[in-house]
């Protein structure tokens, strides 16, 4: 294990993605948040990015000099809140 402290800073707690992983991608020229999301699965965990997406946007802004407002944040997709399958099946049975 290297002792780069950025390997111990978890940015996405749902999918265990570290600050180093994100910064490495930005260093490779991948600064599109959608692309970072697809490679690391940030924002795709149970919290749907409420925790990590703002942090990642901040890192991109700091490293690229872009303004936070100019960074495209991924669209939220339905379900807006996670939903249990049994709940959906329930409303079917009532029909």
């Amino acid at each position: 294990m290297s002792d780069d402290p950025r390997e111990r800073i978890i940015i996405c707690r749902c999918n265990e993605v570290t600050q180093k992983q994100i910064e490495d991608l930005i260093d490779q020229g991948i600064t599109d948040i959608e692309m970072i999301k697809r490679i690391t699965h940030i924002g795709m965990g149970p919290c749907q990015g409420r925790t990590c997406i703002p942090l990642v946007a901040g890192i991109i802004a700091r490293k690229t000099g872009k303004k936070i407002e100019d960074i495209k944040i991924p669209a939220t997709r339905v379900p807006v809140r996670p939903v249990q399958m049994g709940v959906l099946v329930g409303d079917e049975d009532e029909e």
Partner: protein
Amino acid sequence: MKNKVDIAIIGGGIIGLYTAYELAKRGVENIAIYEKKYTGSGSTFRCGTGIRQQFGDGANIKMMKRSVEKWSNIGEEINFPQLKMEKTGYLFLLYSEEEVDRYKKNVALQNSHGVPSRIITPEEAREIVSGLDISEVIAASWNPTDGKADPFLAVHGLVRVLKKMGVEINEYTEVKEIKVKDGAVEGVKTDKGKVKADIVLNAANAWAKILNEKLGVKIPIEPYKHQGIVTEPLKIGEIKPMVVSFRHGGAYLTQESNGGVIGGIALKYGPTWDITPTYDFMREVAKNFSRIIPALKYITIIRQWGGYYAETPDHNAAIGKIEEIEGYYLAAGFSGHGFMLAPAVAEGMADLITKGSSTLPLEFYDPYRFQRGELREQAIQMG
């Protein structure tokens, strides 16, 4: 962006990227890819990850057998070992004698091409996926050498190697028009300027028709909305193979490497350019998934998305040379199985472009078969 290239590829999905790789491997030097958004953003990043050889016709079986060989090695070959095909199998659950008869024939054909599929009992199916409700299952068609791969890693790995090989990848660059002069391709006109090219490959899948129509080329490829879902992670290994049930709305589902269940059902809309997820889809998924594996009732769906299947009338792609225009090639209309086919299609296409022919059965996907009224038997389609 260069203003002159040898081969211009339109579309940075798995087909465009993989074909560029096969061309570069054959020594073609001046290749450029034009992608209107970012690589993978079309259908490729929205796909269900499945790779199978269980088709019902010889051509797709041969192509997929070659694809699986290539999927198995690509990670090593491009020095990106994270990318690997997981051979976790495809399990088709069968509920009627009629279905069993049909799958027995498919299995015999698959076996004759060296694919080790077989018909198994419901109990054997439950040994593979312990959570299955087998009370109405009468048999299953099982092939252990089918599986899945991660589209994000596939795109990332290919982009990385293409850059090293000197292929120019232009993201956020849309091709507005293919330029033709005296019956031959002259280049492409993009929103960032014109590029001269001797050869143009249309790998724009769902959007392929738009560019074709501007040239008067009529090949029936239409965009249909299909959807997928993913659940919260479950214990890894609970659902290793892709489980398919045509009895349950054409459901297909498997577990991703992080443990989430990914899949969909055959509820489609279109032709349409709208890919907004629908509530009906989510409810039908919940209903059908929890009939196949009852414990899924207690699992939570965390994400749902829509994407295109670029569909042709017989659900087989249109691949080949466009006869009317010298230097123009098409590989599009994958009808929901373009991710799995990509390695073989890329190999065939690269041979066709550089040598004029391929040993793979590309003629099966002849773009002119529709015009001639020679539709193929509908390919087995998921979702």
